[in-house]
């Protein structure tokens, strides 16, 4: 068990990193807004001070309407993906599980591109595409769950295989839909690569309650997830209602992943890397992992998004590309580490 003092230190470091990244991300853009200006503007917005001198109104609009929603969205999406990954890794008893594991990303993609192709990307306000993505994600998760349910029990191994199979089928369907896409192919591609561009407060407002709900649910199942890592039968012997736990974990993980993917497209590796890494630092106790995973996931995505929108400015890299470029070498590093340990 990690010493409480060390855990507090890790938490403090992460909190500082989070705040620093947040301020940095909010400062950087077409217009540099210093952290001091940010704080003064926020104070003004809360009605505490008068409008700060020397700050153009346009800067205030940029901050509150363009930059802040984007960074806040990165926080929510990053935290959601990381938490989803944590729950799935616990449920599958496998540190390589990922939010996409039960086909949530594929389902979201199918829903999104179906709407883009039939109704266009900017239709139904800002909500048509994310709503369709959320429905697609949830429907897929439910389908995979039902496929894996044999009698009263859900077999975790079958869940994994069903997720793979369903994702493959959906991928094929997506290709068919895209062949009818014509001029929207760019909108589709942009969505698939994942990004936080052109997202505003409505998107944030839509997913914040869902993510908060999911994170709270994860907190409730944290202890049971510890137990289930001993094996389902052993957990049952110790007093866990395993069937109920599995249903809850799938629902929570899918809710978090669907919320994230519906507004940000497919962003990989955050859900996989964050819990995996932090487990090496603070141990496997899910109750301790949960807060640090939320913080780390948020920080990671803030920074990834910052890189995505500055490295080839004014053009943007899709955020999913940045996380993949981080995640690939990370995997290789892990492989080598495990290989060395196995030989030792």
């Amino acid at each position, binding site marked *: 068990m990690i010493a409480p003092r060390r855990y507090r230190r890790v938490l403090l470091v992460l909190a500082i990193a989070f705040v620093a990244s947040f301020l940095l991300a909010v400062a950087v853009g077409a217009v540099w807004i210093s952290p001091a200006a940010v704080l003064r503007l926020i104070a003004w917005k809360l009605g505490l001070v008068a409008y700060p001198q020397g700050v153009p109104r346009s800067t205030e609009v940029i901050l509150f309407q363009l930059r802040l929603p984007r960074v806040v969205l990165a926080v929510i999406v990053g935290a959601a993906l990381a938490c989803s990954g944590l729950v799935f890794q616990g449920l599958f008893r496998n540190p390589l599980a990922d939010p996409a594991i039960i086909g949530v990303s594929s389902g979201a993609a199918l829903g999104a591109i179906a709407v883009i192709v039939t109704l266009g990307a900017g239709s139904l306000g800002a909500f048509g595409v994310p709503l369709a993505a959320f429905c697609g994600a949830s429907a897929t998760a439910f389908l995979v769950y039902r496929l894996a349910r044999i009698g009263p029990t859900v077999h975790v191994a079958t869940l994994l295989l069903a997720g793979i199979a369903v994702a493959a089928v959906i991928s094929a369907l997506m290709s068919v839909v895209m062949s009818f896409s014509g001029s929207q192919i760019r909108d589709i591609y942009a969505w698939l690569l994942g990004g936080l561009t*052109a997202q505003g407060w409505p998107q944030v407002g839509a997913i914040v309650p869902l993510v908060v709900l999911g994170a709270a649910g994860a907190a409730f199942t944290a202890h049971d997830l510890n137990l289930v890592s001993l094996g389902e039968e052993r957990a049952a012997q110790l007093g866990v209602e395993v069937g109920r736990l599995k249903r809850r974990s799938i629902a929570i993980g899918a809710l978090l992943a669907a919320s994230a993917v519906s507004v940000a497209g497919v962003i990989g590796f955050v859900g996989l890397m964050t819990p995996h890494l932090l487990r090496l630092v603070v141990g496997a106790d899910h109750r301790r992992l949960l807060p640090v995973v939320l913080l780390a996931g948020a920080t990671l995505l803030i920074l990834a998004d910052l890189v995505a929108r500055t490295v080839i400015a004014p053009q943007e890299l899709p955020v999913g590309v940045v996380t993949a470029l981080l995640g690939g070498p990370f995997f290789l590093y892990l492989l080598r580490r495990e290989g060395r340990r196995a030989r030792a």
Partner: protein
Amino acid sequence: MRPFRSLVGVLVALLLVAPACARSAGPISAGTPSSSATRAGAAFPVTIVDDDGVTLTLDAPPQRIVTFAPSATEILFALGLGDAIVGVSGPYDDHPPAAKQIEQIGGAGEFGVEPNLEKVVSLQPDLLLTISGGDQWKKRLRDVGVPVFTIDATDLEDLLGDIGTVGRLTGAVDAADELVAEMRTEDQNIEQSVAGEPPVTCFFEVYYPPLTTVGPDTFIGDLLRRAGCASLSETAKSDYPEWSVEDLVRESPQLYLVSSQSGASPAAVAKRPGFDAIAAVADGHVVPIDSDLVSRPGPRIVDGLRALAETLHPNAFA
């Protein structure tokens, strides 16, 4: 439990800020008074529905305009409003030369075809004039208080109407009417000149490979018709169809037009497999066409029309 609670505290703090931000601070334009004379013929406030179906109301003539299409830039300059332009889309805004000096706000988004929203907002425009496409960023800009107006010319007549609309929108009504009259006269002249001539079979190449041409409902399709070209692609069903080379050879048009977008030289065209069987190629009637003139729906479109007409019917303009 304590670390979790502190995290919840952070999240709650964030959430407190969020709803406050949802309230907009109001319009962002600084509203400096216009340096140029009040535009002649103005009637403000004006309410117009744009080609995206969005209704826009301006209370006063816009003083700080951002364009996100080279054609829009050209139209505004032609209306004498070049001084009011504070932002253009990018390096393609090259006509007139003065446009090259204006701040560029494009190249953003994942494919580099979107405007940099923060830059746009920092320029404090009171109007953004653009063409169709980009529904998502247009909505974002409207949400942050930048009025967006879309013009989407489908043919020459529609373009003339759009120019008139821009005139009403910017208060330069007289200038717009004058420009439209000029363009219409020029168009009528050209069409009369070629009226008596027998139609020439032609083919307009937009891109190769794959061999892409223009459909009848496109702007260029309209121009080709007016210039007296019997385009092979009149029967096409879509706007930028792929054409079969075999069909091209079978029909063997008399004139082969290559858009500068495709960029192929007449020599390169002649070298393509099967192309030397085409009459136009065999007779050396492969003509490059400056796509800026024919595909930018702006004031210079009549120059493009003239270029096309002269290529098709040189005798009529001798």
